[in-house]
């Protein structure tokens, strides 16, 4: 990552313009040519630094219902349980964590009924209790990393 990459990544995290030539707007603001920006984005993607460039939506505003869940999974069953949990496209994040509750995942569904059904299915498929911790209040969601080289 050189200084140009850092500038590009910091800018892209804040978002490109909704105009016909967003990368030209970006070029003018950063003082880097549009051509260089496009080539760098492609390279940053190929190197895996950019996971995705696209729309970042607000799921509650989109009418989605979500919750954070945790399960206490015996060591020997981690892979099997992870496969069952991850099979749902509504499960967007799943992490193995260093805690008695060792499997933590988020479920985002289009209705409260779907959400409840998925949690119940996971419980009955695995025989393991799922604790659910829905949001009461959001104080912050801002996934942007200040980069410098």
């Amino acid at each position, binding site marked *: 990552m050189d200084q140009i990459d850092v500038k590009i990544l910091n800018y892209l995290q804040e978002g490109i313009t909704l105009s016909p030539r967003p990368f030209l707007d970006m070029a003018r603001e950063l003082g880097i040519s549009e051509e260089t920006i496009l080539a760098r984005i492609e390279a940053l993607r190929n190197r*895996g630094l950019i996971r995705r460039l696209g729309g970042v939506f607000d799921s509650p505003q989109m009418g989605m219902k979500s919750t954070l869940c945790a399960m206490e999974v015996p060591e020997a069953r981690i892979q099997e349980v992870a496969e069952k949990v991850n099979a749902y496209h509504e499960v967007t994040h799943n992490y193995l964590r260093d805690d008695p509750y060792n499997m933590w995942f988020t479920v985002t569904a289009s209705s409260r009924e779907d959400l409840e059904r998925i949690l119940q299915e996971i419980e009955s498929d695995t025989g393991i209790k799922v604790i659910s911790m829905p949001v009461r209040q959001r104080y912050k969601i801002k996934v942007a990393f200040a*980069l410098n080289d």
Partner: protein
Amino acid sequence: MTRHDIIDRVIKELQGDLPAVSRPYQVVAERIGLSEEEVISVLDGLREKGMLKRVGAVLRHQKVGYDANAMVVWKVAEEDMDRVGNLMADSPQVSHCYWRETPAGWPYNLFTMIHARSREELKAVILELSRMSGIDEYRVIESVKELKKTSVQYR
């Protein structure tokens, strides 16, 4: 296509990857059979309604140098929640800060995700948040392995 269909198709395209080309919205428009102007106007509308936060990049934070991350959960009295929640939200190393409903037996109700460039920095950030907020009952729950990470499918 009805207005509803158009919005649906634009959301569907934008939840995928945008090509790094000079006119990315034109490419999206061609895929759906709309004009570039229509696509931009739908996006503008979604942004005004707060449904679209931005069109931007999501990074792999480990790959950009933020490889010390933890979920830290704090036990905060309900009447003190706004003060502590807003204070923690102000920290640039905190990406998510949520008050959550928790079941009996789980006393930690404020959830933060903290990202740092080293274990030392992570530890220092947590200690600083605890000191500033006065909350000393907390648990650091580190991730051992990413089992899944994708985006929400809206349409």
